């Protein structure tokens, strides 16, 4: 598994402190991040991919600085967003997955073969030529996942990937995430998805409120929510 390190990380957005004094080393295969809206959990997740740079401190993935070597980091870290519509670039399913490999140096037949394999694995092979905007929410999220995983990242960061989905689709995406070989960092409000995770971080007001196994961490989160 990759080593994701946060060293004395602070982040400010204008006058507002979003993250403060974050020191973490994440090496577990399954890491969950929970917290209220605006707590800073999405900012924390985006830092792993270099989408947000800390205003102080450093974030590294396997020793690679996300602020200085963003491209290198993004080859290692895939990112799935809440709304797959914002992540899908091409008008058809197969084209969108292939888009991720456009600068991979692979030949067209090689790309087509890899795309076909991945679409089969994700149950989207029957939709290869379908317009992406006509897919269901769950299928769109699966497509977004496929488009990220075809680049074979060692870490997958998913920022509330089930929030916009109904229960059935949320389960489908959760099952797929659970079966991945890649290290997964999952930001979610669906606490039941984290039951089998190795580690859960609870973020509150830009700080780590709890960092533990799922049961005690989620108990601390529920207690904190109860206090508010």
């Amino acid at each position, binding site marked *: 598994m990759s080593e994701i390190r946060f060293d004395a990380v602070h982040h400010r957005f204008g006058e507002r402190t979003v993250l403060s004094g974050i020191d973490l080393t994440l090496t577990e295969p399954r890491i969950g991040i929970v917290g209220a809206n605006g707590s800073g959990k999405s900012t924390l997740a985006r830092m792993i991919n270099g989408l947000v740079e800390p205003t102080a401190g450093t974030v590294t993935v396997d020793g690679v600085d996300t602020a200085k070597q963003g491209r290198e980091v993004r080859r290692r870290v895939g990112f799935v967003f809440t709304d797959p*519509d*914002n*992540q899908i670039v*091409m008008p058809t399913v197969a084209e969108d997955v292939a*888009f991720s490999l456009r600068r991979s140096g692979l030949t067209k037949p090689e790309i087509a073969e890899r795309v076909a394999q991945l679409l089969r694995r994700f149950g989207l092979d029957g939709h290869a*030529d379908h317009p992406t905007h006509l897919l269901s929410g769950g299928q769109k999220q699966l497509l977004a996942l496929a488009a990220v995983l075809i680049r074979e990242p060692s870490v997958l960061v998913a920022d509330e990937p089930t929030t916009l989905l109904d229960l059935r689709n949320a389960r489908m995406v959760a099952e797929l995430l659970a079966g991945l070989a890649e290290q997964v960092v999952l930001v979610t409000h669906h606490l039941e998805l984290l039951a089998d995770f190795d580690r859960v971080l609870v973020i509150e007001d830009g700080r780590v409120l709890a960092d533990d196994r799922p049961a005690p961490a989620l108990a601390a989160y529920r207690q904190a929510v109860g206090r508010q």
Partner: protein
Amino acid sequence: MSGRMSTIGTYRPGSSALHRLPAGPKMALLLVAVIGVVLLRQPWQLGIAALLVAVLYGWARIPWRVAVAQVWPLRWTIVVIAAFQLWLADWRAAVVVCAGLMIAVAVAALVTLTTRVTEMLDLCVRLLGPLRRVGVDPDRVGLVLALTIRCVPLLVSVIDEVNQARRARGLGFSLVALVSPAIVRALRSADAIGDALIARGVDD
């Protein structure tokens, strides 16, 4: 409406000769067809051109509903142009201008309906390749084209949702109530798409 709008210019899989024709010759034929249509001056000539386009749609096995959807968004523009032409010239001019516009759009749509965006992207990158020397990034231009096509159904759904929200609040039609939230949402989407493109390694 949004369902029909979202079919505009979206590739439809198929195995017709038009589907199999490479993007380069198809774009060249499109150019010739549009120039040809502009040069037509008689309504009967445009009638033949329209018939030819209809045959091409049939040949590509594009359902007639999808074919109509390609020119349907032009209806108000056509009404305005026709009225203008009738006022300034005569019915012949109105027919020639309006039919020419519709045929040109229909032919262009036929190209996008039968050509994968990746094929057009590759063509664009090839054609713009020589401009690398003057600082043009063909990949980036191709990406802009792909995103433009991709964003049509996205924007249609945004406008549809904003419209439904307005109706749900019991408000009558208001351009401000439609345009303001639609622009805000479009800008937010643009921001999010930018983040997603970076995350997908577009800059790599």
